[in-house]
C-alpha cells in the first residue's frame, strides 16, 4: 500500500509481474476509486464545455466517451480526461485524482455562470475490469453492458444496482470501467473475486500495462509545462474549434516544438526510469518520463522527450544516469501489439 492524493493505494497483491501477465491472458479487477468524476448539465457550446476540452464534444453521440485534455492559455496540459455524453445536455467528466481540486476550479472559472456542475468524486466508486475474458465476467454482473462497443457506455444495473459501465480502460486490453455509488463497491469487488478467473491487480501492474501501450500518465509524462503537440497527443486536439490554449498551440505548430515524445526499448532486461537522461553519441539529448520492465517483451521499456532532435525510429541511444547506462533503441508505440482491446 502507498499514499497517493489522500488515498491509501494498493500497489500490488500477488506481484506486479504476475498481475500484469494475468490481465493480458485472463481478466483482472482494479480498485480505481481515487479518480475524480464531475457531472455537468448544458449545451456544450453555450455552457462553455466545448471551449474547455481539446476534443470536439458537440458531435458526440449520447452513450459515447471521448478522450481529451484541458489546457491552460499557454497550451500546457492541466489534465487529461474522458468525457461521457449521458444526454444531449448531460455529461460526466472523469479526471485524475491528484488534479480534482485544480480541475474543479478551472471548470467553474470557465463554465457559463449558472451552469449545473457537481463534483461527485467522493460518492462515486470505480472498478476497472480488464482483460480478454472481461466480457464473460460483465455478462454475469451487468449483462446489458456486455455488447458495448469501444469507447461507448451504458447507464445500467450492476449487480441489480444503478450504475454506469463503459468499454474503456488503461491497459490496452478488452475492458470495462464500472462506476457505482461508493457504498456498493465492496460488494462488487467481492463478487468479482468470487469468480476464479478474476484476480485483483494493483497500481504497479496498471502502470506496467499502460506503459506497454505507450499511454501517458498525467503528472509524470504530461504536465502543465507540456503541450499535447510535444506529448504525441495532437490527434486528441481539434483545431477546427475554439478551445482554451488553441492560440498557443497554433503558434507552436508554426514555430515548431523544442522536444518531442519518444518511445524507447532497452536491449536488455534493464529498465529505463523516470528522470534518466537520454544519450545520443554520449551527449545528453533528452529525458525519460516513465520506464519499467515489460514482462511481455522481457526487456526494459520507457517513454520520454528528445530535445531538438529528429526522433528517428531505430535510432540507437543510451538511457541512464551517472552510474547506469542502458543501451536502447527508439521505437513506436504500442510496445505490446495484437491485444484484445478491440475484440
Amino acid at each position: 500500500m502507498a499514499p497517493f492524493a489522500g488515498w491509501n493505494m494498493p500497489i500490488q497483491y500477488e506481484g506486479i509481474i504476475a498481475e500484469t501477465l494475468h490481465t493480458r491472458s485472463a481478466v483482472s479487477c482494479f480498485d480505481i476509486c481515487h479518480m475524480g468524476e464531475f457531472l455537468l448539465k448544458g449545451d456544450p457550446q453555450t455552457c462553455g464545455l466545448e471551449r474547455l476540452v481539446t476534443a470536439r464534444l458537440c458531435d458526440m453521440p449520447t452513450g459515447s466517451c471521448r478522450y481529451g485534455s484541458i489546457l491552460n492559455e499557454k497550451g500546457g496540459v492541466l489534465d487529461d480526461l474522458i468525457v461521457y455524453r449521458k444526454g444531449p445536455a448531460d455529461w460526466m467528466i472523469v479526471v485524475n485524482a491528484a488534479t480534482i481540486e485544480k480541475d474543479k476550479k478551472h471548470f467553474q472559472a470557465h463554465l457559463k455562470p449558472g451552469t449545473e456542475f457537481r463534483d461527485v468524486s467522493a460518492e462515486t466508486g470505480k472498478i476497472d475490469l480488464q482483460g480478454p475474458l472481461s466480457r464473460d465476467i460483465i455478462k454475469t454482473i451487468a449483462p446489458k453492458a456486455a455488447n458495448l462497443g469501444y469507447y461507448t457506455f451504458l447507464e445500467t444495473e450492476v449487480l441489480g444496482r444503478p450504475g454506469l459501465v463503459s468499454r474503456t480502460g488503461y491497459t490496452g486490453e478488452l475492458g470495462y470501467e464500472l462506476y457505482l455509488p461508493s457504498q456498493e463497491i465492496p460488494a462488487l469487488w467481492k463478487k468479482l473475486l468470487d469468480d476464479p478467473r478474476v484476480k485483483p491487480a494493483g497500481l504497479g501492474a496498471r502502470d506496467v500495462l499502460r506503459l506497454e501501450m505507450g499511454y501517458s500518465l498525467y503528472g509524470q509524462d504530461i504536465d502543465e509545462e507540456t503541450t499535447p503537440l510535444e506529448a504525441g497527443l495532437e490527434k486528441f486536439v481539434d483545431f477546427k474549434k475554439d478551445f482554451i490554449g488553441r492560440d498557443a498551440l497554433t503558434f507552436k505548430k508554426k514555430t515548431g516544438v523544442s522536444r518531442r515524445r519518444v518511445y524507447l526499448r532497452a536491449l536488455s532486461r534493464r529498465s529505463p526510469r523516470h528522470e534518466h537522461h537520454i544519450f545520443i553519441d554520449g551527449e545528453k539529448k533528452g529525458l525519460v518520463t516513465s520506464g519499467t520492465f515489460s514482462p511481455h517483451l522481457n526487456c526494459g521499456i520507457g517513454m520520454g522527450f528528445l530535445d531538438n532532435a529528429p526522433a528517428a525510429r531505430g535510432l540507437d541511444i543510451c538511457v541512464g544516469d551517472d552510474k547506469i547506462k542502458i543501451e536502447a533503441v527508439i521505437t513506436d508505440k504500442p510496445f505490446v501489439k495484437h491485444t484484445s482491446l478491440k475484440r
Partner: protein
Amino acid sequence: MNIPDGLYFTKEHEWVKIEGATATAGITDYAQHALGDVTFVELPKKGQGVKQFQLMATIESVKAASDIYAPVSGMIAEANDTLNADPGLVNQDCYAKGWIAKINLADPQETKNLLDPAAYKAYVEGL
C-alpha cells in the same frame, strides 16, 4: 520473515555465509520482498576486488533499482550467472539459488561489523 541461522547480515539487508575462506553473499528475504519482482541483477565480475559496505552489484525490480553492498571485503571468486536468465530466483529462493556472489574473504575479523540473526531480526522489526 525468513532469517536463517548460521548467516551474518548487514543493515542494508545483505546476508553472508562464511565457509572457511569463502563468503557467499546475497540479499535477505526482507530486501527481496521490499523490491518486489526482480528483473535484472548486474553481477560483479570474477577477480574484482570488493570492500566491506561498498558497492558490489546493482539489482533492478519492476519498481526500482537498488545497490547491493559487499558484506565483507575480498575478491570475487564467482558470480551467480544463472541470475542473468532467471533473476526471479532472488525472489523465489534468496538464501540459496538466488545467491549473488562468492567472495574470497580478505579479513575474517570483519564479521564483527555484521549482525547475527537475532540482531538482524530485532533491527528489521524496528524498521
